[in-house]
């Protein structure tokens, strides 16, 4: 066990997998000698050699396309896209190729690739360094989408993703790379070291894809969250004193529907939280499923707390970011009903 930040934990997952499996290789913009703009791949090129962790041209489409080709050959490539905002030039490759290769070839070829990318806001990155595009992946059958909220999960989920034989989008909430952040931006930054899930095994372990975690038990209301918003939801519950059950989805595809349904049937109220803009966001699917499966248990409309339906604007970081006060307000509406 070592105390790790998210960055260390993700680095450790890559290191463990590169050590265990010669078919695992890591590439992307600035990930080689330099170790990545967020230092996630630091030391990997030096340790494992320049052909196992290297820089690529600035061409997200080319990165994913070559990764798919490598996957078809039999490797397990782990590609980094420097910011989730820049996945879109590769979106066609992900949707039309990675997601469908197994299906359309009748199982002859498949795409065991992992695409890591820092996502989300909270760092004054403006509209091109704050994107949360998870809904765009969730709608695409054939892709899996994983979003950890702490170092322990990050490492275990990333190992599971790399070992998975389907294409996995691994979204890293960059705002919590170096410490948990609960949306209370006026408060001093806290460190992972003080968080229990920063205790991370040094070796190989797996957190399975498709299993949510109940990070706080409660009876009065269910809050569904992932990534940074797990911490925001926890802060909102603590601050408001609401008896909230908070579920960290961990992967949105596959989705742990059982855990969600069980909780909402118990609490009868539900709030869905994400950073991405609201309209047709992943929260909509959660609402649709919850009302479908828990209709007769629900006592109030399911509330959504999300980014606004605008781009993410630089000066308005904290007006845009769905912080604890907006979650509290939503919980209160849901608890009140009507």
């Amino acid at each position, binding site marked *: 066990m070592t105390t790790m930040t998210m960055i260390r934990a993700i680095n450790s997952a890559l290191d463990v997998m590169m050590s265990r499996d010669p078919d695992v290789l890591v590439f992307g913009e600035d990930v080689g000698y330099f170790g990545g703009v967020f230092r996630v791949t630091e030391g990997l090129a030096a340790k494992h050699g320049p052909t196992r962790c290297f820089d690529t041209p600035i061409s997200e489409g*080319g990165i994913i*396309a*070559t990764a*798919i080709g490598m996957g078809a050959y039999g*490797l397990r490539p782990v590609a980094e896209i420097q910011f989730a905002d820049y996945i879109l030039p590769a979106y066609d490759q992900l949707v*039309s*190729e990675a997601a469908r290769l*197994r299906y359309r070839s009748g199982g002859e070829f498949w795409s065991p690739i992992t695409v890591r990318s820092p996502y989300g806001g909270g760092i004054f990155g403006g509209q091109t360094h704050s994107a949360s595009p998870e809904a765009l992946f969730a709608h695409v059958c054939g892709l899996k989408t994983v979003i950890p909220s702490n170092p322990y999960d990050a490492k275990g989920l990333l190992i599971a993703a790399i070992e998975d034989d389907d294409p996995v989008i691994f979204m890293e909430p960059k705002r919590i790379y170096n410490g948990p952040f609960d949306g209370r931006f006026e408060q001093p930054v806290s460190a992972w070291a003080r968080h229990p899930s920063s205790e991370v095994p040094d070796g190989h372990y797996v957190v399975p894809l498709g299993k949510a975690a109940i990070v706080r038990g409660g009876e009065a209301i269910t809050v569904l969250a992932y990534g940074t918003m797990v911490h925001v939801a926890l802060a909102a519950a603590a601050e408001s004193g609401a008896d909230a059950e908070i579920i960290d989805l961990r992967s949105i595809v596959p989705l742990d529907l059982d855990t969600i349904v069980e909780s909402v049937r118990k609490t009868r109220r539900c709030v869905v939280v994400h950073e991405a803009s609201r309209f047709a966001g992943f929260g909509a699917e959660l609402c649709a499923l919850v009302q479908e499966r828990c209709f007769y248990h629900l006592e109030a409309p399911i509330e959504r707390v999300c980014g606004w339906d605008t781009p993410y604007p630089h000066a308005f970081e904290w007006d845009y970011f769905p912080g604890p006060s907006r979650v509290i307000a939503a919980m209160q509406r849901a608890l009140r009903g009507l």
Partner: protein
Amino acid sequence: MKNRQPLSLHIPTPSTRPGDRPDFSHIAIPPAGSTRQPDVLTPGCEMRDMPFGLVRVLDEAGDAVGPWNPRLDPETLQRGLRAMMLTRNFDSRMFQAHRQGKTSFYMTSTGEEALGAAPSMVLEPDDMCFPTYRIVSYLMARDYPLLDMVNQIYSNADDPLKGRQLPVLYSARKYGFYSLSGNLGTRFAHAVGWAMASAYKNDSKIAIAYIGEGTTAEGDFHEALTFANVFRAPVILCITNNQWAISSFQGIAGGEATTFAARALGYGLPGLRVDGNDFLAVHAATQWAAERARSNGGATVIEFVTYRAGGHSTSDDPTRYRPADEAAHWPLGDPIERLKQHLIGLGEWSEERHQALDAELKQAVRTAAKQGEAIGTLGQSKPSPAEMFTDVYKTPDWRILEQRQELGY
């Protein structure tokens, strides 16, 4: 600024349209044998003339001439001829099958049969081909079972792709033939990644990829060449310039200003321009590029100059946008006819043997088609709808299980 002259927008237009006399005078065709053959490990910067030549082996008399003559033995030539003739016979039968309502769609490669056949014979079984939909001759040269093709085209119960794909979008891993898709261009850089993987593993396998001249305009094309250059991937990147992209002529893809082989120059890669209707030239160019790749010399771009003699697909009617008799005027002739004449000239073939082979192949195709029809044509037979739900993921999640159940399978 004073007195600026008005600009105007240039829209490329083909030299002829329906009703006009076909005209191919814009295509530069140097005589067979006139284009030099550099050593396979020549640096890219010393081959900048190559995209403006034309690698040709068969001359007007049908003789093999010049430095690119691959000096193939008659048996190899006969195998190549067979693969091309089989392709043409199969195409014509399946085109008919579509017209008879047996399937939804079909695409022929008439006139382009050399482009898959020759490379298929150059590459090894464990190399990988990343084809377009017009490279079925690659499979034909490897004796892929015709019945499997027919079943795929009919999406019937025995379709190896389980009813999931449009006709002709084959996948044949065991034959070194990567999964096709309807999205143009998206697999071109897969070939580069696959080749990089071989190099990464210190294996010796190489890849060959195809793209239509129209599709070179996609960003995917550039990404593939960029990665191929930067990482010196052992891959052969082929542009099949058949003059047309559905209804748009090669000028719309950028062919007015330079050759497609010249695209290689921007990446420091060798760019060969090759007579695509000359089986020997196609073979030699592929061989050269394969040797370069296998010697760690990296990628080669090849433009095959050819002509799409048929319609784009069964959905197309080319007489709407080009002279009906354009194919007959194509200056590089027909690849089957040219190889046949060459073999006859060598004394290794005859009209009689040709006709006998043609009849044999027609029969083989007929048999496969009939067998496929016995299993069922589109709509008459299909795999179990349960197959709609498998292979989305390696292991289905609850969504897929529930939905499958909802449909009753």
